[in-house]
């Protein structure tokens, strides 16, 4: 379990990093390394060049409010997302989702940009970003572009990124007073890949639900939006039966999880129902989505 030989580069600027990506086919960006290094050690990935983002610094390490959005640099580590006061105030869903990522050692190294660009459908932060309707800031030699989280995750480990592009930041709409959030996942052991997870954002105003977004992880090839469940709640009062029904719709209609070594497709579908119910419960405490669990 030693990697194949590679050339190691550590550019000092985003521009320099993009130049390296543009001039070296199959070069691979290294952020926190929590997914890439195991792939290298197992020789499942054998890139000729590794471009380490560790020295890019600057804006990539920043967290700042910008109008109605919170801008989080791609190099911000997961552990910081858990604790950062701005994130906890303006994007609490992201802070909670971050606390479910792997183990402390993984959170200390892994980065937001890394997990976004890795596009693992079982990852927590991409699902949270979809629930938040976040924007992904992508830099290329021609400048920056913004891609909606809804458009970014194309398939398993397949982000909407060109060969000479990189994620530099994520922009999240800041939470409004009426916004409610919930996050739940079901994992065999703390830190394991979840059987399923759900991230919920919605607004409760005038007794009805607005802007309902439910994103599912480990439920399909990408982080998914549970659109049928969302539609069933939009504009409705959060009565208990309705939340339970939405959770059932998320499981039955919104996903088609594949079975694997650890769980059958059927179990994963059941798990989607459970986590959706729990996430809705968390977002709407007191509305009793589904009784004891």
């Amino acid at each position, binding site marked *: *379990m030693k990697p194949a030989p590679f050339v190691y580069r550590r550019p000092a600027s985003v521009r320099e990093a993009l130049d390296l990506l543009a001039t070296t086919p199959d070069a691979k960006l290294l952020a926190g390394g929590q997914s890439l290094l195991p792939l290298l050690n197992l020789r499942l990935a054998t890139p000729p060049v590794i471009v380490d983002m560790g020295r890019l610094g600057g804006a990539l390490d920043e967290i700042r409010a910008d109008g109605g959005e919170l801008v989080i640099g791609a190099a911000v580590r997961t552990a910081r997302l858990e604790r950062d006061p701005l994130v906890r105030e303006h994007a609490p869903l992201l802070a909670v989702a971050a606390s479910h990522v792997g183990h402390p050692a993984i959170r200390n190294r892994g980065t937001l940009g890394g997990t976004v660009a890795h596009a693992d459908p079982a990852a927590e932060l991409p699902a949270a970003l979809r629930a938040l309707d976040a924007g992904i800031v992508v830099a290329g030699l021609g400048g920056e572009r913004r891609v909606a989280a809804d458009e970014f995750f194309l398939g398993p480990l397949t982000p909407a990124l060109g060969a000479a592009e990189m994620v530099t930041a994520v922009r999240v709409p800041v939470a409004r007073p009426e916004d409610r959030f919930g996050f739940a996942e079901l994992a065999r052991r703390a830190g394991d890949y979840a059987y399923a997870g759900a991230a919920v954002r919605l607004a409760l105003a005038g007794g009805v639900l607005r802007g309902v977004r439910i994103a599912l992880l480990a439920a399909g090839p990408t982080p998914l939006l549970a659109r049928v469940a969302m539609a069933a709640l939009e504009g409705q009062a959060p009565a208990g039966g309705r939340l339970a029904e939405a959770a059932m719709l998320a499981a039955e209609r919104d996903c088609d999880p594949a079975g694997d070594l650890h769980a059958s497709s059927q179990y994963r579908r*059941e798990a989607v129902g459970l986590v959706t119910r729990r996430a809705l419960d968390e977002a709407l405490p007191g509305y009793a989505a589904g009784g004891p669990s």
Partner: protein
Amino acid sequence: MIGASLPRLGAERLTSGGGRFVADVRVPGMLEAAVLRSPHAHARLVSIDTARARALPGVHAVLTAADVPETAIIPNRVPAPEGTARYLQPAIVRTVARYAGEPVALVVADDRYVAEDALALIEARWEPLPACVSVAAALRPDAPRLFQGTDSNNVATIRMRVGDTDAAFADTPLLIRERFQYPRQTGAALETRGLVAVPPDPAGGELHLLGSTKCIHINRAILAPMFGIPLGALRLTEVDVGGGFGVRGELYPEDILVPLAAMKVGRPVRWIEDRRENLTATNHARQVEHEIEIAFEADGRIRGIRDVIRADIGAYVRTAALVPAEFGAALLPGPYRVPNYACDLWSVVTNKTPAGTLRSPGRPEANFVRERLMDLGAAGLGLDPAEIRRRNLIRPEEMPYDCGTLSFGATTVYDSGDFPALFEELLRRLDYDAARREQAAVRARGIRRGLGLAVYVEKTGLGPFETAQVEARPDGRFTVDTGASSMGPGLENVLAQILGDALGIEATRFDVRHADTAAVESGVGTYGSRGTVTAGNAAHLAAAKLVAEARTRAAERLGVPETDVTYAAGVLAAGARRVTLAELAGERRLAAGASFNVSKITYAGCAVGVVADVDPASGFVRLRRVVVGADVGRAVNPALIEGQFTGGVGFGIGNTMHESLEYDESGQLLSGTLVDYVLPLAEDVPPVESFYQEIPAHTNPLGLRGLGECGNPGLGGAIANAVCDALADLGVELTALPITPPRVREAIRRAAVRTRGPS
């Protein structure tokens, strides 16, 4: 001193980073090895071309079958049925690979990186053959044979017959028939295997292997003839060991290939197994299927058991041959009177990693099956699970009790013990009746809580013998050597406390060294919960010899008859005149060695109780309490006992809740990393409450029983019983491990179909 919870000797060294594990061994000029392994579960090796690999800068040698003597075959080191030898494993693939992961070539290079680069340059051409990946597939009439010249993939059928089961099953008031499956598992120790081989100096000397463990004398006796050298020209040294668990230290292909490589290049060679290799190349264990039926009297007494066990032993018969499952089959009756017992044990080869021993070989499987049947019997007869066990436990006045089965060529005779008292103590500690009341109370609040019990018998102190030597030193300390190996449970303390007790000297003055063939010419090793029983008694005998020798010399020196010399606390005295062991040792060597010969296996009664909550919606199981106890004969160090229990329970929880080596249909291991071979975390293990009983064993002078395998093997049955108890009204039956949330959900769905009929 025996009976004191003295702190671990050597703990400071290990906890402060002073350990020296095999990967810490550095020898000048050392090279590193990597092993090319078969990518196929079953394939003919058509050709192998190593030219490009050898040409890679930094590569020193590539070993293939051509470099390995034909005699390099992994032998079984225990008795085995006729014909077993046809299923043994050559150290390297010669013509046919029979499991994915079987060694095909070994590269020696400047470092592991280059060695792995070179592996990719070896061109092996394969002709894939159809693979048998399950016992069912391997036993089909048209199944491909793994070995030419054999008429079956079933290596042997071992038959055990006690009493008359046909008569017992006729007109029985209650008959339960069930199929059980126990998964494939392995030791997955924190430290993987490894070996440093130092070739003999051209000027003379020995071939030195560092990193061996478990049974280094046995392995030396196997290896020396293979290398064509006398026993004395081969030295095996144990260094610190990060977990043995039965898998580590058996003789593996790498133990042959790495020394051959070192001799070929004339330089030290190091091989450290990586985790992916560890899960494919180190022994697997356990996987069995039971087709079993049990007959009860109306009052709950067992009339008889009939069982067909099919063990999936993987591609080859390895060092422990067919013994692991045989141990289980022989102990299946466990602590109960089973007057009639018939068991056929099949040992079937499949195209998977070969199987061997793993902490309590054979018993977790048998205990899971038997203890589930006891609960099913209780349910069928309307008895409490505790009560049905009470009615069947062998009573102390029935000791010695002969189960009537044979394993390892030996009878299964429990020499002594009080299983009912042990069981009642378990129930008392569980506060069983109160726990039942609480179960009902929380159920009213929607919490499904279950209680699970398991009573079982462990075999400890396995033979054939063990040695110990103690040498008094002029500095007042003592050097202790033994053939037993020190793999972490505290052998140093056990020997130091037994010697200290015998000699009247504090335990901290005994330096117990790791096993080394250079220090001990004859020894056996550590397995089968034997260290304390066998090395402990050998040390006790050695101490007596040392005092006798010292007394003779003191009498000479003091000019008195030997009978006038008294011994106490390191001092020999005759009246006012005295001489110490240290002073005698300063004159000339003062040492004594002894061997303890095992005439009978020592059995130990054990019991465990579990309280668990089950969430039927998610299938998640939360263990709330684990209480476990065993008869240790005589407690040498209670703190070590508690440690063994706690570690054993964690081990058993992993075996029960998580661990399963899964293969795909082509014979590729799917659980090839620790993401997929799931081990327990600290959070999976509730606080362990342990206790022990002290009923001296009649099998050895000190009355000791072994403990190393008492903590883990009851958990499968106890946890399964607790989960089924929590879901009893749903009719849930668990017949397979591990008890993962998806498996619990599946069992609930199956039960619903059974009770309501298919929807």
